[in-house]
């Protein structure tokens, strides 16, 4: 079924994709380009409102691009939306399961929409329900399912027609830890199959854990694209040291911290605001900085605390860490992901 078209090209190809909404002053997606080879797990990482969901919307024919091109499985999403729909499956953030029928029927009818032969869809439904730990509940209607269970049903449903590209929008947002681990395990199993996974997330752990490559998005633009390891390696230094003080501070403190031996560079940390408004200016909040280090973080705690007290500040909190994708995001945008 998935072999109707040649499989040698990239699974997804996006060139200068733009989405402009009529009443918005800024583009929701602002000239994004990337290419995803078949079989890859590709993560779109960014805060809410970064344009991830809109990008996926365009790739899945539900949002019409204002400019640029997008191909899924070699099919142009604008020129041949019906052909594109054959190539993809979507697992949305919120449940859109058919509430009038059982979850087994959800799977079976989905396959029927996609032309899977009757016998095959029954067998496949049971197989997938089993794989996703839902076989004993296959006759229940979706109303009685928790968020994590609905998510599993939706992933199983998406796999019913053997799509070439599977889009998952924030697959574990709002799930409890156990449910999240279960979904992650299933997604890791999918890596072994030849389906291409594109997942959007604002969870750096999820991106680092699952994705072969991660694209970091903010304000509709692609800021960086590489493997999680390469993105982290691109940061100078080996580790990080995050300091919080009791009072706001001026640039002199940052300079003094940057002057310590073993510090590669210093980054003030702003708390990300939920609604995308500009955060309050850094110098009105108690100091919060992250030091990117070339050496051992533990050795720098004492000298850094000394610098702070020289400037009349008291150290309130210390966090040692090896750099993560979150640090990459902070390095690129000066903000945290959440």
């Amino acid at each position: 079924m998935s072999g109707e078209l040649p499989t040698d090209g990239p699974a997804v190809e996006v060139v200068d994709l733009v989405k402009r909404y009529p009443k918005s002053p800024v583009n929701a997606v602002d000239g994004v380009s990337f290419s995803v080879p078949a079989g890859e797990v590709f993560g779109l990482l960014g805060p809410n409102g970064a344009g991830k969901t809109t990008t996926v919307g365009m790739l899945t024919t539900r949002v019409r691009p204002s400019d640029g091109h997008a191909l899924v499985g070699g099919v142009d999403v604008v020129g041949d939306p019906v052909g594109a729909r054959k190539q993809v499956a979507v697992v949305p953030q919120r449940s859109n399961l058919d509430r009038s029928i059982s979850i087994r029927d959800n799977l079976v009818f989905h396959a029927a929409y996609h032309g899977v032969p009757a016998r095959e869809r029954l067998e496949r439904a049971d197989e997938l329900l089993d794989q996703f730990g839902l076989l004993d509940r296959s006759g229940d209607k979706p109303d009685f399912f928790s968020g994590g269970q609905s998510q599993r049903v939706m992933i199983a449903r998406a796999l019913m027609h053997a799509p070439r590209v599977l889009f998952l929008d924030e697959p574990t947002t709002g799930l409890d830890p156990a449910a999240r681990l279960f979904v992650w395990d299933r997604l890791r199993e999918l890596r072994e199959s030849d389906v291409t996974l594109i997942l959007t997330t604002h969870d750096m752990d999820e991106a680092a854990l699952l994705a072969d490559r991660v694209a970091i998005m903010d304000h509709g633009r692609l800021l960086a694209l590489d493997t999680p390891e390469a993105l982290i390696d691109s940061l100078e230094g080996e580790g990080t040291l995050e300091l919080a003080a009791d009072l706001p501070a001026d640039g002199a403190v940052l300079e003094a911290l940057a002057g310590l031996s073993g510090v590669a560079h210093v980054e003030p940390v702003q708390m990300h605001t939920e609604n995308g408004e500009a955060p309050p200016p850094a110098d009105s909040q108690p100091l919060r900085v992250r030091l990117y280090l070339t050496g051992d973080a533990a050795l720098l705690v004492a000298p850094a605390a000394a610098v702070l007290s020289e400037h009349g500040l008291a150290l309130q909190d210390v966090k040692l860490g090896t750099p993560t994708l979150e640090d990459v995001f902070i390095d690129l945008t000066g903000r945290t992901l959440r």
Partner: protein
Amino acid sequence: MSAVAAPWVDRATEWRAFRAVLHRDLYVTWRELPAFLAQVILQPLFLLFVFGKVLGSLDLTRPGYADLLFPGLLALTSVLTAMQTLAFPLVAEFGWTKEIEDRLMAPMPTAFVAAEKVLFAIVRSFVATLIMLPVGVLILGSIPWRWSGLPLFVAGLFLGALVGAGFGLLMGTLVQPQRINLLFSLVFTPLLFTGCSQYPWPSLARLRWFQVVTAANPMTYVSESLRGALVPSVPHIPPWICLLVLVFAICVLMTVGVKGFYRRAID
């Protein structure tokens, strides 16, 4: 850049998807048959009982009133059933359940998803209207029936279902979920009482302004065409005018409705 399948292969895929979605709708209706019947039959049944039977038994209506009421109630059932089949589920599916997304992602043009909804509404409308025939016999003892009026009867029901589906598509895509209550009070009730189902249109000459109001409701022409088919002795609007107006109304409603559907389906 890729081998394109023969067009007829694509068409086959699209029709298969269309049929599968229709199958799902019929499957759900079949499994919820009692609820469906209650939803569509109860209202005309009570109208028929009170206006046709009770008022008649109390001598509050003239003899023969039930005969001109019955075709009107068939028209009402036909239009409102089609409308309800589309409007409420659409508001919910686009608004909060998002159930429609799985169909919009099926390998068929977006217009097919809308067309399936319309066809399904017509099927439900036909079933509901046909059930009214034995119900009418049961309540009234006999119903007006002319075999020679059958072609006009079927045409009237079909166009009535399409008008209702057009209204449903329009409302289902225009109405915001939080305003779904307004749909009832501002749309259903006026449509119900200005559609000439309880009175023949020419008789309204004595109430000129109301006659003008009812002329603006497409359901009026469904009622009048069914009267023309079943009780031609009652003064009614000539059938050809009814059919013409209905075709025009359907074109307008469907054009705007499908446009609304696309607006909700594709961002």
